[in-house]
């Protein structure tokens, strides 16, 4: 009976609110009185579509529908239903008493968990007795909203409406349209808004809201001195122009898309090049990119602009977890893939549409009108999903790079001509004088492999594992075997590897000639062939941390051995040599690793332990040596037996005349500066970006119960149909190319007629301004989400947002300019406040400003800002305050105590691996980026207080804070105290507070006060 009312729009929106419940009581009673009783008397005709279908839809179809209905009984189709199920006919027209359906319903056997109400039972009985006439068939389970689920008439699926702000009488409160909506609701509840907050509170609120940083004392003073409307507007304008705006709001977005910088799961490898996405988000927000473009770029940026921007933006697809250990069996691989697709669809649906479409993977969505088939249509649309890194070239930098390289190569050839001439003369002179070749250097260990695996100098004797053997004075490695030595009995930092290697073939990739590593293989360095670039030698290392390309040349030799050496210098430089001559360019990446005595061994033929995969080398090793120091180029040349042809630079310079020397010096210095420039530009010109690396679009089937072994019908890439006025059909075949699938999906999501697109985003922005959204479940506008507290306001804002080209900054402006936003948190009299609290304790009606605890990031940033240490450098690789330890195939991230300008950057630039928590951020509810976080929880715990009192970062910041105060406020203690208060919380202490501060400072010093200030309510909570 209430159904009629339920479908009317505004009431539906208000369904959960208190007075609407009250209203319903009245309506229900009235309707009952007016209709039911007379109806009974008149034996009115039951309307199937209006009265019976809703009962079936909400109470029966969950089990009694589809291909395998419970008890063989389907109630969707008239013919099937009337025929009955496994127990025969269940509905006997005109005879409810003789109908099994009625019998079971009447006995509360069906529906099993939640029996029908008396009223419903009566209606059902009457319907059967009246002849069980059906209306529309088959029943559409999603047609209408019922008490247990949303139908296609669900409020958030309806087209946007253009609603005018209400006319509010009897108050002149309000600055813009928002206030009309808010005041209207307040008045209807007998409440009044709070007065405007004081200027200090207001400017702090604005700064933290828009920038996530506190204002300086000067900025506060300026506004407090002349808190005019113009000044307020000016501040808002300036803040929205600030680059910190993007950092603040970018962090919110990163929460929603659960951006993390490691894979998660067992291995949890770091993603050192994922930051491009973060930077792209920040830049796009600062540029006020329209929201539809913003989303389109994240979905199909590779197709729109391509290049660095496209690759960075589509980092959206790979911001989440990725399982890299999926097990051996095909089923496990398939399950892992399906899990990944579901996880991404969950984020996609909740982020852009506010719907949990992922819930329809194993069955029809239990609460929202999304079918299982539609889920797989969406899965098909993103079936090319793939994680990986792409190298993107920046055209401008590429041009610069080419010209630098050209100039460099000219200079290098000039130099080499000069040097070659000089060398030639020196060698000729040498031969004439018969100077003896220099002696090769003495190694720490040397393996001749003439008859055994023993070390001919020390005791690092080798042991063959597998079929490794000695033949004709060489170690034969068959690609499945290796040699390991006794543990190295001293610490090793600087080192040199040398090996005379004859490769079996040039196609192999990943084997090592010689390697040093911890005994479990967790950390290692090695001479590796072809692993990253085919046919090239490279310095192998765990997780490539000390690996980069020498940019040498492709190996050609297979018929004869080559002498390969790699030198590791203390400061981290790694130099390669081939046949005694430098191989490509030296590299420098992470610092050198210090191997501990007794825990290290040397391997031949295996990159690192455990044995397996592509780690084996197929080659002959004629001889090898290891040095616990970095050899000089001369020594390498001597060892390689090329010293008769080796001329040192010193010898060359000495042989030149003065003019030539000068000339050479100039060339050398030009080469040096150009090399630096080349490296710098090259880094910018070739960016490694962790992003979507799309594979082929896959033909996708419905998987019954989500089980990969239970394959149903093939589906085409498409969306879901429940949004009124928006077709879900992409017009694509099941085998359509990947690009077009994703493009159609992006078009559908960002479509003008998609009301969810605007509603969800407008609500998010509101949520971050007020701490609570108009819909308090920002990721869920479906049945299980909450209903809007101010539905018309949401509608108004969404309409305006779309009409104004989806620009976010004007929306911010509208919100922060409203009187609603500017209300004081504690501005009402005690009586007024008690009254308001008795009606609306949690301020859903917005009768006051909310008090909000700073988020973890804002708290850390505020401390940095107050101490004056904040490094405002934007973008680029993340700073790390965790150690990255690879242990037995798993990456561990342990918080480390680091200090310096690099880590004084804003927290949004913190390297954020999954499980790599920071004690301070963690206790202040910074979420782990495992799932989308539309709303952070706010807890108050003793661990939080402990962190804010004792954490090393906080204590260090207290010291810096004190130093700053001392240097800025002069020697007077009172002046220092006042300055510290103003810096921290933008106000002066009152007399009592000043006295308490004085007592503390005089006995315990300024750092104690500074530590105290960080722990003030007023520092941690913003009114």
């Amino acid at each position, binding site marked *: 009976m209430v159904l009629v009312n339920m479908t009317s729009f505004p009431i539906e929106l208000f369904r959960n609110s208190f007075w609407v*419940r009250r209203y319903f009581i009245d309506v229900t009673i009235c309707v009952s009185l007016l209709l039911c009783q007379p109806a009974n008397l008149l034996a009115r005709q039951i309307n199937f579509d209006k009265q019976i279908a809703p009962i079936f839809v909400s109470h029966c179809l969950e089990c009694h529908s589809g291909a395998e209905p419970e008890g063989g009984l389907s109630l969707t189709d008239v013919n099937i239903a009337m025929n009955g199920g496994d127990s025969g006919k269940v509905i006997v027209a005109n005879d409810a008493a003789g109908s099994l359906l009625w019998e079971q319903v009447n006995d509360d056997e069906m529906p099993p968990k939640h029996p029908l109400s008396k009223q419903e039972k009566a209606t059902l009985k009457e319907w059967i007795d009246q002849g069980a006439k059906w209306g529309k068939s088959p029943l559409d389970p999603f047609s209408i909203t019922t008490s247990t689920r949303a139908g296609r008439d669900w409020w958030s699926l309806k087209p946007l409406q253009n609603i005018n702000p209400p006319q509010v009488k009897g108050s002149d409160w309000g600055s813009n349209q928002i206030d009309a909506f808010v005041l209207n609701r307040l008045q209807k509840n007998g409440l009044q808004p709070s007065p405007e907050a004081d200027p200090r509170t207001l400017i702090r609120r604005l700064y933290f809201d828009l920038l996530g940083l506190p204002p300086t004392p000067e900025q506060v003073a300026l506004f407090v001195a002349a808190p005019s409307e113009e000044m307020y507007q000016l501040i808002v304008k300036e803040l929205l122009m600030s680059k910190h705006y993007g950092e603040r709001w970018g962090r919110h977005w990163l929460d929603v898309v659960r951006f993390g910088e490691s894979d998660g799961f067992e291995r949890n490898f770091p993603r050192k090049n994922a930051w491009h996405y973060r930077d792209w988000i920040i830049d796009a927000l600062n540029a006020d990119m329209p929201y539809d473009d913003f989303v389109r770029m994240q979905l199909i940026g590779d197709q729109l602009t391509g290049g660095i921007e496209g690759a960075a933006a589509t980092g959206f697809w790979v911001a989440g977890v990725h399982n890299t250990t999926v097990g051996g069996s095909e089923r496990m691989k398939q399950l892992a893939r399906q899990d990944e697709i579901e996880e991404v669809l969950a984020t996609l649906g909740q982020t852009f549409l506010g719907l949990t479409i992922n819930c329809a993977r194993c069955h029809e969505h239990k609460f929202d009108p999304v079918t299982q088939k539609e889920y797989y249509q969406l899965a098909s649309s993103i079936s090319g999903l793939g994680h990986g890194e792409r190298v993107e070239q920046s055209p401008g930098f590429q041009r610069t790079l080419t010209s630098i390289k050209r100039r460099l190569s000219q200079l290098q050839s000039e130099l080499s001509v000069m040097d070659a001439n000089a060398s030639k003369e020196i060698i000729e002179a040498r031969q004439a004088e018969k100077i003896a070749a220099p002696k090769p250097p003495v190694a720490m260990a040397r393996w001749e492999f003439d008859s055994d695996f023993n070390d001919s100098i020390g005791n690092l004797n080798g042991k063959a594992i597998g079929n490794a053997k000695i033949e004709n004075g060489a170690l034969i490695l068959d690609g499945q075997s290796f040699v390991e030595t006794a543990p190295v009995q001293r610490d090793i930092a600087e080192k040199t590897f040398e090996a005379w290697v004859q490769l079996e073939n040039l196609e192999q990739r990943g084997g090592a000639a010689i390697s040093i590593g911890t005994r479990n293989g967790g950390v290692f360095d090695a001479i590796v062939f072809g692993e990253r670039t085919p046919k090239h030698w490279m310095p192998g290392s765990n997780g490539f941390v000390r690996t980069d390309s020498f940019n040498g040349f492709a190996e050609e030799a297979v018929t004869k051995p080559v002498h390969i050496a790699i030198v590791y210098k203390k400061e981290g430089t790694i130099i390669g040599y081939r046949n005694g001559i430098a191989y490509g360019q030296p590299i420098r990446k992470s610092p050198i690793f210090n191997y501990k005595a007794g825990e290290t061994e040397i391997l031949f033929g295996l990159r690192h332990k455990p044995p397996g995969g592509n780690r084996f080398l197929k080659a002959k090793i004629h001889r090898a040596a290891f040095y616990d120091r970095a050899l000089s180029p001369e020594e390498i040349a001597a060892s390689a037996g090329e010293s008769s042809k080796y001329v040192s630079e010193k010898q060359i310079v000495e042989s030149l005349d003065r003019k030539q020397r000068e000339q050479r010096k100039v060339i050398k210095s030009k080469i040096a500066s150009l090399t630096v420039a080349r490296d710098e530009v090259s880094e910018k010109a070739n960016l490694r970006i962790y992003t979507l690396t799309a594979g082929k679009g896959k033909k996708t089937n419905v998987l019954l119960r989500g089980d990969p072994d239970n394959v149903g019908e093939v589906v085409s890439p498409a969306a879901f149909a429940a949004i009124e006025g928006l077709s879900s059909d992409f017009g694509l075949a099941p085998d359509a190319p990947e690009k077009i699938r994703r493009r159609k999906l992006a078009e559908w999501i960002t479509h003008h007629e998609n009301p969810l697109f605007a509603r969800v985003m407008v609500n998010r922005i509101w949520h971050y301004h007020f701490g609570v959204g108009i819909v308090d479940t920002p990721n869920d506008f479906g049945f299980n989400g909450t209903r809007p507290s101010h539905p018309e306001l949401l509608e108004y804002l969404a309409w305006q947002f779309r009409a104004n080209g989806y620009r976010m900054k004007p929306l911010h402006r509208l919100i922060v300019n409203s009187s609603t936003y500017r209300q004081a948190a504690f501005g009402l009299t005690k009586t007024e406040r008690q009254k308001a609290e008795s009606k609306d304790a949690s301020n859903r009606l917005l009768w006051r400003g909310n008090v909000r605890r700073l988020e973890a990031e804002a708290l850390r940033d505020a401390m940095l800002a107050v101490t004056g240490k904040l490094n405002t450098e934007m973008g680029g690789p993340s700073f790390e305050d965790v150690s990255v330890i690879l242990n037995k195939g798993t990456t561990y991230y342990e918080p480390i105590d680091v200090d310096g300008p690099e880590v004084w950057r804003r927290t949004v630039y913190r390297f954020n691996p999954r499980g790599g928590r920071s004690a301070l951020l963690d206790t202040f509810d910074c979420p782990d980026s495992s799932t989308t976080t539309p709303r952070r929880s706010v807890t108050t715990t003793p661990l939080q207080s402990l962190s804010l009192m004792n954490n090393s970062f906080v204590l260090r910041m207290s010291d810096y804070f004190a130093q700053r105060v001392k240097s800025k406020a002069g020697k007077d203690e009172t002046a220092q105290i006042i300055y510290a208060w103003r810096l921290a919380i933008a106000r002066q202490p009152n007399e009592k507070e000043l006295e308490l501060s004085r007592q503390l400072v005089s006995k315990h010093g300024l750092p104690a006060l500074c530590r105290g200030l960080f722990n003030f309510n007023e520092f941690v909570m913003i009114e």
Partner: protein
Amino acid sequence: MNHSITPTRRDLFHWGINGLAATAFVSLLNRETAAAPKDAKTLVPKAKRAIHICLVGGMSHVDSFDYKPELKKFHGKSLKTNEEVDLFFGQMGLLRKEDWQFKPRGDSGLMISDMFPHIAEMADDLTILRSMESKSANHTPALFLANSGFEFNGFPSMGSWISYGMGLENESLPAYVVLNDKRGAPNTGESTWSSAFLPSNHQGVVLRSGKQPVRDLFPAVKLNKETDEATRQFIRSINQEHLHRTGADAAIVDRLKSYELAAKMQTSIPEVSSFAEESAATQKMYGIHKKQTADMGRRCLLGRRLLEKGVRFIQLFSGGPVAGNPRASWDAHENVKENHTIEAGRIDKPIAALLQDLKQRGMLEDTLVLFTTEFGRTPFAQSAADKVGPGRDHNRYGFSCWMAGAGMKPGIAFGNTDEIGWKAVERPIPWHDFHATVLHLFGINHERLTFYHNGIQRRLTNVHGDILKEVLA
């Protein structure tokens, strides 16, 4: 249409946080130590606290708690099967008999092997579940599933749910404490004891040895004690002033209280971590004096002390990272005898001591002891198809766990695997059933302990879970 006029629990709870008309309810929720929906706790709790021993890497049930005489008979035979078996490495060798001798133990006569000679002595107090099964034969998802009911990152662990459902018994200690193996944390790291979408006060707190048993318990740099105390006083005074100015705001009151509790923790944690008041005999009973058992012995004794002080849920891991050589977990792919001898040797005596100690103190009455593993190991060897190698692969189809203490029927084995221990055949127990039973013992209805997250009222048991009534006292 059946639109109930009384708001449903979900509505109340929801509006309790965010909404209207539930004022009293809101502050009640905030004042109470437990935040869970009230009607979740409908039963009289048998258990007030639990200690969970979590074996990382997969313990072989056919060598420990699941005696299979047929396996001896079929040793060296091939397990003929046409199905595609879900293993990790996929190498299916010949059937392998148990490597330890089984004996009937205690009055109950439960069959337990010599792998755990000390635990075996406590047989009459154990309830062995012999028909456990998992959805995954892969470490990470399996460990997640055993802990949180889901195979993925991002779901609250059982300890967090219990903290959420039961609240704090002792405000000056965390409700949920994690004690890691000395050799390292499990691969899943912090995610293993994460509160995920539950408020972060329900997260597992790692307690370690050393000067900072809990992160940031004491100042990171040395501070004068008086300075520290004076600063604390100063903060209290200023924050109290602030409270006076603003009026009784719940969030601000909570903040003040959190500083008091923090100060209490600084005494209570070192106190509970110190063994000074434990007799030499007790320490010896736990095996603290021996290198092999020292790590687990210390953690079991600390576990008992924490239980005494009212910590709700304590999780002890046996095993660190699963991969690597030599193994530092139960992942005996290469050699079960070798690996399990070492691993069982580390924990057998300490766990037996824990049971005995809890019992003699009368604590086993209301304390639940859980002994679980990710999955079992295959009855066939992990080797070439014609060999009986010494290692076993992962077996998700059937394995053993045990429970003891509060509300359990002791001295029984429940459920069964097939004749060779390959698959659970008699009352298979998925993790959801295990979790439902644990919550039940805590007096919690697992279907009602829910938390709204991104569209769904989430539960520890997802949409499943049948209580194992047969094992309840």
